[in-house]
């Protein structure tokens, strides 16, 4: 007899998602499926729209990570019109993107991830939230996070009008420049963000490195997945969120591919399964061979840990030091330890904050030269950048008037969808034995997908609360035997 465990609702991508875990007669985990249950059809209904309107339409794909969509779209327009943005425009775009990274990474970390290991993964769920975190650490972290988030969102508002739905983004530039007056407070926010980033890493070290139990969990097989990794790197192979080439490393860490993202179709395949609305990406040259890791796998992961795994280092000096110390602790590169995504996320937030500082100090930031008007329509444009959760690709084709005729989008959670299924399966196999699923163990399984921050999580993580989670255990007729639920 097979019974079914449903984890629902979980995280958002294009809509809502759920995880189904199947148990065999002994109550051991047989398989797990991460399903995305909504499809909104952007790739179809954007046809007929003027290309330059795309950066104003695509943020609606996700109100939690709208900035990366707005910007990948803008970069696709650069390519479509064969134009390089002016140096100042590029600075302003990166200011926007890095401000987004800082606020997004911290909200995820403090409200969603940190309670697990600062308060303890199998502690009382009533304490396992940001309030418990504050009690444990003894400072008002919640207030600080709200503060850093607010300040960074002010920068986004200045540049793009609305943080939840950034506007503007034009081929070759940005619609609005920065003044010297504004530079001053941008600089203050940048300094504050760096200071906060160091404080966050300090908390992480105290909570994890000084806690043998937790470190053991991070390094355990239950949270390990042997896959390829993908992410953007600059010409020195350092982590870059905004531009560069896509690099793929194999499970041993060796370079498997380094390519211009405009050629993504030769490298990335999207497989369709009847049980999910999401298309499952994989390395095309290896070919789709199902949901498994290790030998023969064609699956790769994206996002914070993946970016660090594919790079040879960080873009900024303080982040570089942290990068080295992380791999020392994890026992070398690449790291397959899914829980290390959290650590990588904090190192990235530090890089984003340092990069904000660098931009704020750049004399070119306030130049009036914000648009390159030398546009030549090429009828095909591909934009790619690193969204907070991983590689994001926008591909547009147009008619001779620049009206969209085709759209292809590959978003971060797509690359990670198959690995998420696998990660949950592994953790569930390690912790769920028999139909008596205990609350703490449930959380241990949940911890397997939280590192990916698959975007409703994007939204849930924004609140001092628990991830909503229910596990229904049913017999083979689908009748409910028991329901485990978090209050």
């Amino acid at each position, binding site marked *: 007899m097979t019974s079914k465990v449903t984890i629902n609702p979980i995280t958002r991508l294009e809509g809502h998602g759920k995880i189904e875990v199947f148990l065999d007669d002994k109550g051991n985990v047989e398989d797990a499926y991460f399903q995305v249950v*909504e499809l909104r*059809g952007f790739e179809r209904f954007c046809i007929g729209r003027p290309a330059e309107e795309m950066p104003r339409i695509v943020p609606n794909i996700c109100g939690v990570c709208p900035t990366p969509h707005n910007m990948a779209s803008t970069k696709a327009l650069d390519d479509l019109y064969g134009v390089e943005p002016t140096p100042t425009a590029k600075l302003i775009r990166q200011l926007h993107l890095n401000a987004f990274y800082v606020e997004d990474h911290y909200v995820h970390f403090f409200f969603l991830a940190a309670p697990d290991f600062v308060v303890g993964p199998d502690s009382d769920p009533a304490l396992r939230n940001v309030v418990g975190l504050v009690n444990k650490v003894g400072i008002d972290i919640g207030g600080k996070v709200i503060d850093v988030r607010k300040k960074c969102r002010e920068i986004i508002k200045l540049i793009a009008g609305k943080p*939840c739905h950034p506007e503007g983004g034009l081929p070759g530039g940005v*619609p609005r420049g920065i003044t010297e007056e504004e530079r001053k407070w941008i600089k203050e926010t940048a300094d504050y963000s760096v200071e906060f980033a160091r404080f966050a890493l300090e908390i992480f070290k105290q909570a994890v490195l000084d806690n043998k139990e937790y470190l053991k969990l991070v390094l355990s097989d239950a949270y390990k997945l042997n896959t390829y990794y993908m992410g953007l790197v600059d010409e020195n192979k350092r982590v870059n969120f905004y531009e560069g080439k896509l690099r793929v490393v194999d499970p041993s860490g060796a370079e498997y591919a380094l390519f211009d993202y405009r050629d993504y179709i030769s490298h990335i*395949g999207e497989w369709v399964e009847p049980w999910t609305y999401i298309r499952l990406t994989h390395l095309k040259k290896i070919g789709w061979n199902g949901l498994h890791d290790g030998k023969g796998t064609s699956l790769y992961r994206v996002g914070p840990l993946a970016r660090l795994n594919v790079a040879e280092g960080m873009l900024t000096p303080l982040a570089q030091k942290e990068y080295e110390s992380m791999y020392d602790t994890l026992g070398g590169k690449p790291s397959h330890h899914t829980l290390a995504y959290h650590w990588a996320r904090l190192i990235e937030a530090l890089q984003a904050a340092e990069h904000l500082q660098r931009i704020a100090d750049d004399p070119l930031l306030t130049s009036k030269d914000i648009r390159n008007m030398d546009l030549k329509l090429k009828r095909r444009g591909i934009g790619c950048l690193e969204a907070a959760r991983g590689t994001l690709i926008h591909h547009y084709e147009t008619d001779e*008037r620049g009206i969209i005729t085709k759209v292809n989008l590959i978003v971060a959670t797509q690359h990670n969808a198959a690995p998420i299924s696998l990660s949950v399966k592994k953790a569930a196999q390690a912790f769920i034995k028999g139909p008596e699923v205990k609350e703490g163990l449930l959380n241990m399984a949940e911890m397997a997908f939280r590192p990916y921050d698959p975007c409703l999580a994007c939204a849930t993580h924004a609140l001092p609360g628990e991830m909503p989670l229910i596990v229904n255990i049913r017999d083979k007729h689908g009748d409910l035997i028991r329901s485990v639920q978090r209050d």
Partner: protein
Amino acid sequence: MAKLKLALYWAAACGGCDVAVLDINEKILDVAKLADIVFWPIALDFKYHHVEAMPDKSVDVCLFNGAIRSSEQEHIAKMLRSKSKVLVSFGSCACFGGIPALANLTTRAEIMERAYIEAPSNENPNKTLPQTKVSVPEGELTLPELYDNVLTLAQVVPVEYFVPGCPPTVDLILKVVNALATNSLPPVGATIASDKTLCDECDRKKEKKMISRIYRTHEIIPDPERCLLEQGLLCMGSATRGGCGALCVKVNIPCRGCFGPPAGVFDQGAKLVSSIASIYQTNGKQDIEKMVNELVDPAGTFYRFGMSVSMLKRRIPQKT
């Protein structure tokens, strides 16, 4: 005063409306003093069956964001309607369909075809399409079915108030919170925003200049002080309700109408066409043809956020 019981829900939405509620930052603590949140799927672990078990009218206020495009969403809208004293259509998707309603220009079959068969990086030799029921070796997996058309909340159930915006601004959210706190809600049916147009609150210089050409946003660098429409950019300000603080216009980008039509205006597109006609210099048929040619995507521009309530594509609910 007893604490209010507050519910928040998202249907076909991007999550931005929920995030916008968090953008009130530290004031969220005032809300916590004022109200107990009894249902908020994105943030709290209350399930549908909890709501089902509540007595009718036991929720004081429900802020409902997102459009309606599946039977599940319609079912929850009806359930929350009967449980709530006051149902608020929150955000442009719930009020007018929003960007998801651009899907009304196409069909579900076309969307599936594009996503699973045509997309250039697909590897789909057997032309598999996602199914509502699938057998896998271990058992059965299900997916919900989607409607062909995207509907507004008010097309499905009666609604007391409308709060427009993609997303509603912090000021508007605080306005709603204050009205609740002081028990001073406006008459039923009201839209909580300005009654005037966006042009009325925009401080760009209007010089009553005529235009002889419509430009697309990438084609010119507009003067930062002057009215965008008078520079030939299609700005929807005259056909759009005020209340956002002219956010887009402030970053030199023309309005796309996310606050919906102003009070007394039935159709946003029709209103905009009359604004353009009144400032476009025409001497006969040729010029009118030229103008029409320069309007490259009227449907997707005039009804960017309002397809579900437009004259063009006002659809009736369609069950699948």
